[in-house]
């Protein structure tokens, strides 16, 4: 689990998370509304300049995300073949500018800030009784905690296959992983309740 956050506290780190998310939304509307290649080029240039000045780590991270760049390349090539060069340039500028800006937002915001923002956004839901905002933080923590657990369960089953000379097959691998994991849910839920983690949350509110 690697989260590349640009730790050098640049100016973008101090911008509130909601403001960054809002500007991403506005930028995406702006980029999709326009078809002028020149305007798109100017916008993409601005975003690239922001990345170079404020967060080089984001730029590096964006260049390393090859699967994303690959899908963009496929779409651009397809557009070039079917609708000509100008349309392809528009698509290229639009998608790369947007994904670069999104990467900048991700790289200049810590996971803690994101969780705080999500919790704050869920507060109105809590008031009308739809969700418990603090459960969101708990659930995210649980997933991060359980990923290595499920991984080792998977590895144990893979080892058992190897020891018996069996071929890895979906049914004999995935089924035991799921059933074992579901069976462990009771224990974990009891442990959470025994420590009254959620009850404490309710009291603090």
């Amino acid at each position: 689990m690697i989260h590349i956050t640009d730790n050098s506290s640049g100016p973008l780190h101090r911008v509130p998370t909601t403001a960054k998310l809002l500007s991403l939304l506005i930028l995406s509307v702006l980029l999709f509304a326009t078809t002028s290649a020149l305007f798109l080029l100017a916008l993409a240039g601005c975003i690239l300049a922001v990345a170079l000045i404020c967060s080089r780590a984001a730029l590096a991270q964006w260049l390393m995300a090859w699967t994303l760049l690959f899908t963009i390349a496929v779409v651009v090539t397809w557009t070039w073949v079917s609708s000509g060069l100008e349309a392809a340039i528009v698509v290229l500028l639009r998608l790369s500018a947007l994904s670069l800006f999104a990467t900048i937002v991700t790289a200049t915001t810590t996971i803690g800030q994101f969780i705080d923002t999500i919790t704050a956004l869920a507060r109105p839901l809590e008031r009308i009784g739809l969700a418990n905002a603090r459960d969101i933080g708990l659930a995210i923590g649980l997933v991060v905690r359980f990923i290595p657990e499920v991984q080792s369960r998977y590895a144990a089953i893979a080892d058992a296959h190897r020891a018996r000379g069996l071929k890895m097959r979906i049914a004999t691998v995935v089924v035991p992983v799921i059933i074992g994991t579901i069976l462990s849910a009771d224990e974990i839920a009891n442990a959470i309740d025994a420590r009254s983690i959620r009850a404490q949350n309710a009291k603090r509110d």
Partner: protein
Amino acid sequence: MSTRSLVLIALFTAIIVVLGLVPPIMLGFFPVPILVQSLGVILAGIVLGARGGAFSVLLLLTLVAIGLPVLSGGRGGLAVFVGPTAGYLIGFLPQAFVSGWIADKVVAKNVTGWKLYAGLFFGGVVGVLINHALGITWLANFVGLSLADAVIGNMIFVPGDLAKAAIAAYVGHLVSKNLGTRARG
């Protein structure tokens, strides 16, 4: 929501993430190795039901949005929500909900054997169709492909995803046989 449902949802999200991390598994009858992360999403609906499946996928999307590299190939961050394949990613949510809803109905009927399998497979296929419809809509409306191009490009993924629906139904019927409705908290 009971603590048990919360834990089950979090555990299943962890399963989906791990399925994206493991090397692709070869299937006996399918000539190419398949990536199993989207299998995890189909399974979330079929095993946990509509509510649990949808929450599980919502939790996955939240993890992606806050920048954790939980999607296959180590992808994550807000960039994937604005990339060409964003429709498929968002489509996971209604997919898990609808296949879960159908699976709930099928399991509630207390059928066994091939009827249970066929019902779960139907749920999986409907979910896959919804996911592809959203993926195509995104490609055609926001990425700039023509509708025909998007549909043709999408065709590459249809056989694989139908195979995954079949596997998910098989796994789902084994889980349901062993655990009954214990996972549908």
